[in-house]
């Protein structure tokens, strides 16, 4: 057993795997999150906030 995780992380230990793994599921989930964020922001800023009474103009 190595002294710490640095020692574990030798090139042959992890080599190659990085290229093989494409986190397509993650990309999908995060794209959905992105869409939710944009839609929610547009609603809350442009409709809810700017549509309220007594907007501060000075």
């Amino acid at each position, binding site marked *: 057993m190595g002294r*710490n*995780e*640095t*020692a574990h992380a030798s090139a042959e230990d992890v080599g190659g795997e990085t290229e093989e*793994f494409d986190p397509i599921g993650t990309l999908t989930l*995060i794209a959905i*999150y992105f869409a939710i*964020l944009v839609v929610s922001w547009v609603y809350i800023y442009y409709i809810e*906030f700017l549509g309220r009474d007594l907007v501060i103009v000075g």
Partner: protein
Amino acid sequence: MSEAIEGDRTFADKFPEEARVVRAALLGSFLALTLGAVFGIIQTLHRTGVFRGLISSTDYYTSLTAHGVFLALSFTTFFLVGLFTWAVVRSLDRPVIDIRITWTWYGLMAAGMTMTGISILAGFVNELDMSADVLFTFYAPLQAHPMFYAGLAVFIVGSWIAGADYFRTWLAWKRENPDERIPLQTFMVLTTMAMWYIASSAVAASVLIFLLPWSLGLIDQVNPTLTRTLFWFFGHPVVYFWLMPAYLLWYTVLPKIAGGRLFSDPLARVVFVLFLLLSTPVGIHHQYLDPGIAEGFKFISMTNTMFLLLPSLLTAFTVVASVEYGARQRGGTGLLGWLTDLPWRDPAFTGMMLAGLMFAAGGFSGMVNAGMNINYMIHNTIWVPGHFHLTVGTAVALTFMAATYWLWPQITNKPIYSRAIGLVQVVVWFVGMALMSNAMHAQGILGVPRRTAEPEYSGFDYPTMFGGFEELNIQIAIGGTLLFVSTVLFIGNLVLTMGNPKISGLAEELPPALSGPDDAPRVLDNLRLWVGIAVTLVVLAYALPLAAIINRGGLLGPGVGTFPVWLTPVLDALANGAAAVVGGVVDASASLAEVVG
């Protein structure tokens, strides 16, 4: 001893002395959690009008101060120092330099928090002329008993020594391993503590130079905008101080529990460096609606704040990708089908995942909070507590509780009493918080203020949206009750765990990252450089605003009085007087303040 057997040793076996400190820190943390939860349920029921029989509306603010200080400072920080001690010692695979120093900072932090805690809780006892009903933010000129400030100072000094302990242990390791990269967990601890030194310097200055001498009567008045600005100099980075240990767990422990490994070690380092750089020069975004601060400073603060989204957005990707890798190692397939191949029966896994999901929702309300002018809509409404109950109240708190199910056996050699109860507990927390936080956000949009014992007013009704004020109150009460139940389950499970016998075979190793530290540019480990840039950014962001504030109001403020909350005569006069006799009350408190001063 053979290598195989050594690999089976838990942290408690390898480092029994350090494990004791970690246990003590976690137990301190859970004591604070218990107290905080008791005040939490009292407040939920009081505020929503479901049950107001336990405390008076005046004592609500004593409870609220206790809830804030015990949870936001005590629960989080004690867990953090326990976790960090474990992380540094584990990842460096060496003991701390001197365990007596480690116990010294623990003792100081415990003593400081006890002092502050007593000064707060004394507010419930009318016979004692001691109170600290100034809430977590202690805005002057409301004034707490001196012991409140003194305790905070001692607590912070203790945390500084803890940071020094980690840095010295790392330096000793570095001498022994001159050419090695800083192990990831230690890197995370060091960057977080560097941020903490920068951030807490301001609140320490505020307490030691202004608030403590003022509460002792050594100076007559303080500048409310200045002390408030110094608080928020600390008050925003402190939220990342809470969050960083949760990130450490998401990056280094969660992938392992998911059956995989961290996706990218270099990106994890980049994220922590970004937090070190950007956490502090943003505090003015809590003061968007303050008079006496120019709009330009607010805009700069907003720009920094928005870019602070970046490390969290990157984290979302890296952590989910690490979990996806784990799921695919476990045989998961499909675009999203792998989600079913994760260890959802493990409370540590499910708890952390639900915490992360809540954090994603909190990210949205955080964007609204960060938007300078949209702040008019939600500033100081209950939207804001709705937001931070998602972040610190779930992303952090639920991660800590979930991680405890994994970590506690490592530091005690005792298996968790019931993982099934643990699973129920984390799900109940999630459901409770979903209800409570959602309703708080909705009430905030109606204009319902935060920090009030009775949010219903005699002169007007709130507009009716999202089901309306009353219905949302019910949701808050149900949600808050579920959160209390969840805390009871957590604490109960832990107490029963303590009764379990010690066994062997609980040791868990943390695997290295897919893309390891050798992939990370060396410059990332140059802590001096990053601290230097961080300090420069803070100076750029704060020098001019602080100079302008002092220039406007003077170091000690432009003719502002002193309003001690810790003299019962004043308190009673204020409570009874209400609006009708405002003038008289002001005179009375001014003269009383003179007597005190």
